[in-house]
């Protein structure tokens, strides 16, 4: 029996449950990713995506599975963007951060816990994301992103997510993506406030040099998750060729405003 026939015979209400995928792996000596790919390619939806179905078609689900997103920075924004993209079904992630988890990250950074303190954020992310979806492929880079050395990573990705915390580096990465014509999702936060832009230069968002308002206002968890949600939405829209942010957006969770800039 072929893998595809096996999968078709083991769907329940039209969906492929995890147990059937595990059985297929054993029966055909293949890995989980191969099973999920065969299913999606042939219009069989793994059960994990059932609640995506009304928003994302099975064809789009397969597009996401084949996509690669580079997430630069695995702190607040990067950790949540990585999890959201994993759960929605993006098939390949490159996560890049030379930092390790520290105690002051525990207020907001996904997968930081007393147990992961001192460990590379990118490695912890890879472990947790691949545990959520064994079909996912994560490349973890435990070095700080250097635009001069790692420009090739940008080439590998379909979309680049800016989850950095350094305005100068954010601008450099944005300009590099523009030069390479690579879709790019910017996000940044400070206190109750956040800002976003998609595939545009950041020069008009960072007029003056120096530290941003986050040095004064901090980085609370709710703003991180809000901003990561918008960035994840933009990344998915870009991957699926949907309309995305036409101009920068400023988010205000203090007075609940969204302002187009």
């Amino acid at each position: 029996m072929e893998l595809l026939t096996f999968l078709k015979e083991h769907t329940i209400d039209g969906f492929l449950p995890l147990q059937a995928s595990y059985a297929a792996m054993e029966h055909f000596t293949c890995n989980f990713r191969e099973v999920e790919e065969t299913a999606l390619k042939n219009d069989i939806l793994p059960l994990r995506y059932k609640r995506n179905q009304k928003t994302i078609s099975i064809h789009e689900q397969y597009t996401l599975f084949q996509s690669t997103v580079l997430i630069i920075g695995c702190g607040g924004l990067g950790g949540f963007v990585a999890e959201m993209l994993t759960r929605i079904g993006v098939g390949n992630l490159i996560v890049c951060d030379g930092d390790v988890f520290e105690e002051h990250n525990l207020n907001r950074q996904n997968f930081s816990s007393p147990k992961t303190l001192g460990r590379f954020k990118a490695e912890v992310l890879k472990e947790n994301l691949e545990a959520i979806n064994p079909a996912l492929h994560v490349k973890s880079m435990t070095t700080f992103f250097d635009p001069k050395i790692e420009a090739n990573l940008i080439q590998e990705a379909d979309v680049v997510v800016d989850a950095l915390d350094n305005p100068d580096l954010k601008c450099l990465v944005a300009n590099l993506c523009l030069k390479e014509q690579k879709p790019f999702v910017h996000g940044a936060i400070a206190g109750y406030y956040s800002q976003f832009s998609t595939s545009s230069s950041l020069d008009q968002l960072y007029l003056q040099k120096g530290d941003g308002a986050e040095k004064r206002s901090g980085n609370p968890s709710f703003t991180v998750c809000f901003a990561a949600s918008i960035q994840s939405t933009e990344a998915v829209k870009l991957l699926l060729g949907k309309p995305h942010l036409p101009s920068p957006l400023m988010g205000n969770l203090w007075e609940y405003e969204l302002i187009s800039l």
Partner: protein
Amino acid sequence: MHVIVKLFAQYRESRFKAEQREYDIGTTAQTVIDTLELESVSPLGVLMVNGRHVAPSYILQEGDEIALFPKVGGG
């Protein structure tokens, strides 16, 4: 001359949200930033006049609406 000044995010704290203010003819956007001591809060992120991004050296005109946003860089 009259200029409407709009402040956003941390710039609003202990200041105002929007105000019509009087300035001398020839006043630049940077002078507005300086008189409100905005840079004591955070460097400037975004500067718009009448909905368009401009440089701090922009010379304000009667009736202009200037919008000022602090720099936001956390990740």
